[in-house]
C-alpha cells in the first residue's frame, strides 16, 4: 500500500508541475490542484499507515501498548484541504475575471505590461 501511495504522490507532483508549465490558464489551475492533492497524500503517507488501530486507550490502561494510527496527519490534511478549497475557489474566480478582462486564456499574452519599463 505504501508503495502505491509513493508512486501516486510522485505522479501527482510531476503531472502538477508539468501542467503548471503549460500556457493555458486552466491547465495552470489544474496543475496547482494536483500539486495540492499530492502534498496532502504525502502528509498522509508520512504519518505512517496503520490499519484498524484507532488511537483510543483502553479504559483499564494508561498508555498505548500497541501501534496506533496517528491522528495528527489527518487533522493536518483536513486543514490543508479546507485551505486549498478556499484558494482554489478564489483562483477560479480570478482566472474567470482575467479571461473576461483580457479576453485570452494564453498566459503568454499577459506579459504586455512587462515590456514597458
Amino acid at each position, binding site marked *: 500500500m505504501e508503495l502505491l501511495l509513493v508512486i501516486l504522490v510522485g505522479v501527482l507532483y510531476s503531472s502538477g508541475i508539468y501542467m503548471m508549465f503549460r500556457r493555458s490558464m486552466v491547465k495552470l489551475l489544474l496543475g496547482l490542484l494536483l500539486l495540492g492533492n499530492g*502534498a496532502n497524500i504525502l*502528509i498522509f503517507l508520512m504519518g505512517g499507515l496503520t490499519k484498524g488501530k484507532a488511537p483510543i486507550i483502553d479504559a483499564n490502561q494508561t498508555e498505548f501498548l500497541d501501534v496506533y494510527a496517528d491522528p495528527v496527519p489527518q487533522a*493536518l490534511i483536513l486543514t490543508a484541504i479546507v485551505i486549498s478549497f478556499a*484558494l482554489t475557489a478564489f483562483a477560479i474566480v480570478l482566472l474567470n475575471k*482575467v479571461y473576461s478582462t*483580457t479576453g485570452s486564456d494564453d*498566459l503568454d499574452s499577459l506579459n504586455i505590461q512587462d515590456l514597458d519599463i
Partner: protein
Amino acid sequence: MTTNFILAPILMHMLTAIMLLFFWQRVQAQKVISIIGNSVAFLMCIRLFNLTMEHGHLVLQVGNWQAPFGITFVSDTLSAVMVLLTAIVSLGVGIYSTAGINVSRIKFGYFFIYHFLIMGLLGSFLTGDIFNLYVWFEVVIISSFILLTVGGKKMQMEGAIKYVTMNMLASVIFLTAIGILYGITGSLNIADLAGKVAAIENRGLVTVTSLLFFVGFGIKSSVFPLYFWLPSSYHTPPSAIAAIFGGLLTKMGVYALFRVFTVIFQPDYFTLVLFSVIAILTMFTGALGTINKRNIRRILSYLIVCHIGYLIAGLGLYTELAFAGVVFYLIHDVIVKSNVFMITGVLFKIRETVDMQRLGGLYKDYPKLSFVIAIVLFSLVGIPPLSGFWPKILLFQEAFKDGQFIMLGALIFASFVTLYVIARLWAEIFWKDSPKPLTEEIDHFAPFSLSGKIALVLPIVALAGVSLFIGLNANAIMEVSNRAAHEMMNPTVYINAVLGTNK
C-alpha cells in the same frame, strides 16, 4: 512568562474586521472603525513589546494543552520587534488608506480584508508551531490576493495571476516540507522540533527538508531565482496596498527563514554557502533591475528584491553581529519601504503619473513635502546618520571579518546602485523642470479636503520621523537588535521557555 496578552493584538484586528462587516456600504463609518481598531492594536503591540523586553520570552499554550502537543504562541525579541513594526506600518497605511483608496474599493471590503491581512501577519510572527505558521501564511496570502485584485483593472489582473500562482506554489512546497518534517520527527512544535531534528542520523534527509523550507520561504521573500513575480505585480495595486506588501509581506518570508534556520535547523557548511551565493545573486539582480526602469514603482519593487539580499546575506554569514545587523536592517527597511510606496501614491496624485520622464519640478511646487521625502530617500540609501547606515556597516564588517569578499563586493555594489537610483529619482522628480506645464486638472492632490491631505501626508511624515528616530537613536535600536541576535544564536532559551524545562 505565560500570558494571554500575546493574542490581544491578533484578536483586536479580528474584532475590527468583524465590526467592519456590519458597516459594509458605509464608507465613513468604516474609515473611523478602521483607524480606531488600528490605534488600539498599535497600543497593544507596544505593550506586548514592552512586556517581552521586560520579562524575556512570553509563552502561551493555547487551551492549556502543554507543548509539544498543543499550539504554542511565543513572543521573543525578534517576534516582538516584528509585531511592533507591523503595528506602526499598519496604523500608518491604515490612515493613508482613508484618503488613498477610492470609495468603490472600500465598498468592496478593502478595510475588512486589510485587517485580516494584518491579523495574519501578527499571527505568523507570534506562533510557535510550524503548521500554525502555515495556516497564518495562508490567511495572509488569501487576504493579499484579494487586496491585489480588488478594483479589477486589467494591469492588476495580469500582475495578480503571477502573484497568485507563485504564492500558491510556495504554499504547496512549504506544506510538503512540513509533511516530510512531521514524518521524520513526529512533531510540529518549533521548539520541540529543534531537539528532534538534531537527533536524526540521516543528515542528508534533514538538509533536503531544510532546503524545501528555504525554497518555500524563498519564493515568499523573493530571493534570486524565485523573485520574478514581485516586480511584475507590486506596481499594479494602489499605493497603500503596495506599501503594506512592500514593507511587510516579503519580510514575513525572511522572518520565517530566520526562525526555521536558527531554531529548527542548524545550517551546515553547504547550506551556508548556498545562502551566501543566493544572497549575492539576489543583490546583483535586484540592483541591476532598477537601472533601466522609468516607472518609480517598478524601481522600488526591484529595490525590495535587492535589499532582501542584504537580509539573506546575514543568514549566510551566520554570526551574532551579522544577525544584529539583519534585525536592525529589518527595522529600518520595513518602515522606509512602506513609506516610499506611500510617497509614490502622493506623487501619482500630484502628477497623475509615476513615470520619471513625465515627472518633474516637485521641489518648486511642494518644497516642504519634498524635504520630508528627501529624508526618507536618504534613509533608504543609508547616508549617515540616517537609519540605513548602521546595519549596513555591521554587515560590511562581518562580511570582511569572515573573509567573504565577493559578498562584501556585492553589498557595496548594491549600496552604490541604490545611491545612484535614488539620486536619479531625486534629480528627475524634484529638481528637473516639469516637462509639461502643470494644469489644475492634473493635480489631484490640491483639490483634496484638508482632512484628506492630512490623511495622505501625516503617515509619511510620521514614518519619516520614525526613520529619523531609528537613525539618531541607533544605540537603543542596536541594543534591541543585539538582544534579538543573541537569542537567535542561542535557541536553547527559546526551547526551554516553550517546553517549560529548566524552570
